[in-house]
């Protein structure tokens, strides 16, 4: 069927020769009439100059009120509408950059962070961003206690400290703060607007705050664009914020179109119906190589797909560390990355993604698992299981970066079979899978980790705490200490050294095998300039994009 030479888009044959054959097909002139001219791409793309159209699967979005933003796709528009106090530059998940705050410092008491706000930053309404707005934002967040709150639950209080300063007082100063509040859920909201629409920061805000409804359709932030509408599973509409403190953004409007199927996104970008397509799979990216109008940008994410193998009470073999390590050495990581992920992925040592402080692809080669069947067999023998063993591998029905868990599971199954380890696949829905996994009932699961912010502690703490329980890892005290010390260490180089030790400990425990850290491939039409992708949780900096 498909021929490489015609990329299915630019032939005008329908207008000429083929129309007659359609009519004679008998399906009728009506059908032809309906279909004819149903391709308004060229005409409308001229008309919509000044609009940036983004194709994205937004079916996971449950809300656009920053205090409730925690899914995958809604940070993108949230970040475009709201500024946080600090931020990360694209491609850098280590060094913070100023945003609404120009300066942040721990006060001598060791538990207060003082933010100094930028002069002249204005909300989209034209009103200036004040310390009271910042205080209100955090106070509301702390009172509503929705998902993002958990990451700042160690915040004691937030106070206006001066005409342009705000103090954040911490309960536990050893836990990180600034990297976390750089993310979109902590975008600063305009108090007056939020209050006007039912918002409150009172202690009973969990029940009393009614602003979410309005904030789902509008924004009250200072970001480059302003939210003006959200139709569930259809689109998110934004318009330019003329008061943006970095100067007006490049587009009049931004339109995020919901497109759940990657095939649809592919065709839409080929036609120019969308300018940016986020959810393409490797096979589709390959077909865009030769398209002169499209460039493909890669973005190494901080997400990863991993296999958790528990020391499950139900499976004596898995309780043996060497048996688990044998799994780690039997997997064809390169095959997975190069073939299944089309080479558009990398792999960290363990639970710290490549790109954060103390995690690089080189380190993986040095201390991570690698395919080594001889070693795997050796480990099996050491475990007293020379003929291998059986375990159940559960996974949900989903795919990440074009690689389905199902495909991945079958690949792992085939890989492990080489050393005699039998993985029995147990496909199930996400709910059952998570219930089993979180309840510590799963032997092994294939799943996904995406952190809300580029903060190492968010990963490391999880592995020694809640995730450890799921995999029945009795974490040695020295590993716990390592994690705490690394989090408290404010010197990047020192903390990187601590994290290396932590990763070695994780490899030794052999409960987590990170398989794919995707380099997300985003197709961008060349008429868009300056769009920068970011791995830090909000996908892209829309404010920098402008027509070419």
């Amino acid at each position, binding site marked *: 069927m498909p021929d490489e030479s015609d990329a299915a888009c630019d032939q005008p044959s329908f207008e000429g020769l083929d129309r007659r054959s359609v009519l004679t097909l008998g399906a009728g002139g009506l059908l032809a009439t309906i279909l004819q001219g149903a391709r308004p791409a060229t005409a409308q793309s001229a008309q919509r100059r000044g609009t940036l159209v983004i194709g994205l699967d937004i079916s996971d979005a449950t809300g656009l009120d920053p205090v409730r933003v925690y899914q995958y796709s809604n940070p993108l528009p949230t970040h475009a509408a709201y500024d946080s106090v600090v931020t990360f530059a694209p491609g850098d998940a280590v060094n913070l950059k100023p945003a609404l705050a120009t300066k942040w410092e721990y006060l001598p008491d060791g538990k207060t962070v003082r933010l100094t706000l930028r002069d002249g930053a204005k909300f989209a309404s034209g009103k200036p961003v004040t310390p009271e707005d910042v205080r209100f934002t955090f106070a509301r967040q702390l009172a509503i206690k929705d998902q993002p709150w958990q990451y700042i639950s160690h915040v004691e209080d937030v106070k206006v400290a001066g005409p342009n300063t705000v103090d954040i007082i911490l309960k536990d100063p050893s836990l990180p703060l600034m990297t976390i509040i750089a993310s979109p859920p902590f975008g600063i909201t305009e108090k007056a607007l939020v209050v006007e629409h039912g918002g409150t920061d009172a202690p009973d805000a969990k029940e009393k705050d009614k602003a979410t409804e309005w904030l789902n359709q509008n924004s009250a932030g200072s970001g480059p664009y302003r939210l003006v509408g959200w139709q569930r599973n259809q689109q998110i509409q934004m318009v330019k914020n003329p008061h943006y403190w970095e100067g007006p953004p490049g587009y009049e409007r931004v339109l995020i179109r919901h497109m759940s199927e990657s*095939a649809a996104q592919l065709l839409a970008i080929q036609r120019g119906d969308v300018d940016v397509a986020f959810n393409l799979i490797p096979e589709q990216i390959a*077909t865009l190589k030769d398209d002169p109008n499209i460039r493909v940008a890669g973005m190494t994410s901080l997400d990863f797909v991993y296999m958790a193998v528990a020391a499950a009470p139900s499976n004596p073999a898995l309780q043996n560390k060497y048996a688990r390590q044998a799994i780690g050495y039997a997997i064809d990581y390169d095959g997975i990355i*190069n073939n*299944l992920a089309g080479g558009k992925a990398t792999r960290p040592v363990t639970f710290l993604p490549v790109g954060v402080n103390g995690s690089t692809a080189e380190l993986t080669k040095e201390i991570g698992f690698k395919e080594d069947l001889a070693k795997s067999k050796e480990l099996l023998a050491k475990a007293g299981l020379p003929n291998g063993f059986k375990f159940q591998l559960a996974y949900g029905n989903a795919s990440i970066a*074009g690689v389905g868990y199902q495909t991945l599971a*079958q690949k792992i*199954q085939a*890989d492990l079979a080489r050393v005699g380890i039998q993985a029995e*696949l147990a496909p199930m829905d996400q709910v059952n899978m998570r219930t089993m996994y979180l309840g510590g009932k799963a032997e092994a699961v294939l799943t996904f980790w995406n952190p809300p912010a580029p903060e190492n502690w968010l990963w490391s703490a999880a592995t020694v705490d809640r995730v450890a329980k799921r995999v029945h890892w009795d974490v040695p005290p020295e590993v716990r200490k390592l994690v705490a010390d690394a989090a408290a260490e404010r010197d990047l180089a020192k903390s990187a050294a601590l994290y290396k030790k932590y990763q070695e400990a994780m490899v030794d425990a052999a409960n987590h095998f990170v398989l794919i850290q995707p380099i997300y491939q985003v197709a961008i039409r060349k008429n868009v300039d300056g769009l920068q992708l970011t791995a830090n949780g909000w996908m892209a900096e829309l404010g920098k994009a402008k027509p070419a």
Partner: protein
Amino acid sequence: MSDIVLPAMASPRARWTRRYGLPVLGAGIIVAWTLAALFAPWICRHDPNFVDVAQRLRPPSATNWLGTDALGRDVLTRVIYGARTSLSVGLIVVLVGGAFGTLLGAAAAYVRGWAEEALMRATDLVFCFPPIILAMAIAAALGIGAVNTAIAMLVVWWPKFARLARSLVITQRSMEYVEAAQSIGFGPGHILLRQIIPNAVGPLVVLVTLDLGNAILVFAGLSFLGLGVVPPTPEWGAMVAEGRELVQQWWVATFPGLAILTVVMGFNFMGDGFRDWLDPHARSR
């Protein structure tokens, strides 16, 4: 008398084709698939579950006649092995569901009274469920796997047989040969099993045959939605699902779909043939 000119009669062969052509073609398709399924290990040159990601998504070629899938497995081999799952699940669901439904419906129709009423209400209840919802709920409750999916299908499957059997038995039981058997003194069990059911079997056979195709379709559909079989077991619906995104690698989804199409068509040809054969006025010529 001799001046009567008769129009040329169709040749015996043409008549045979007209009458038996499609049913025989259908039977041929089914037999071919059945043989392929039974002898798959001897027919196929590849291991259906042999993963080689370096060879993934290869277009049809001399080594892989129908190309390879996302894990580099041979599509042709998996399509042939897939027949095992589809045919056996279809057969089990229809035969078990059919036998259960038929006996229940026949017994209810014969006993009449509250038992019949209860049965009919139960079938009403099943009918007012969207079958997909019910099957999904059951599959979700029991877990994913061919057996569980078959169980889920059975739950929605038996009522139509119960209804058909009931109506057939009701028709038959008013026939005089049944009264004759009663007047001779045969008991209800004998009459139902020996007299009525053999006569009701024809339409049931038609339904079973047509339904086999239907069951295979439904199973493939559930499989497509991810509720069918546990991988790496090859199954057609699941294979289409795997290839759904791969428009450029069309062979991954196209061939398993064609397999479903041919099998279901085969059963339809056969079922129509049986129907015509049983119903003299459908094909009087």
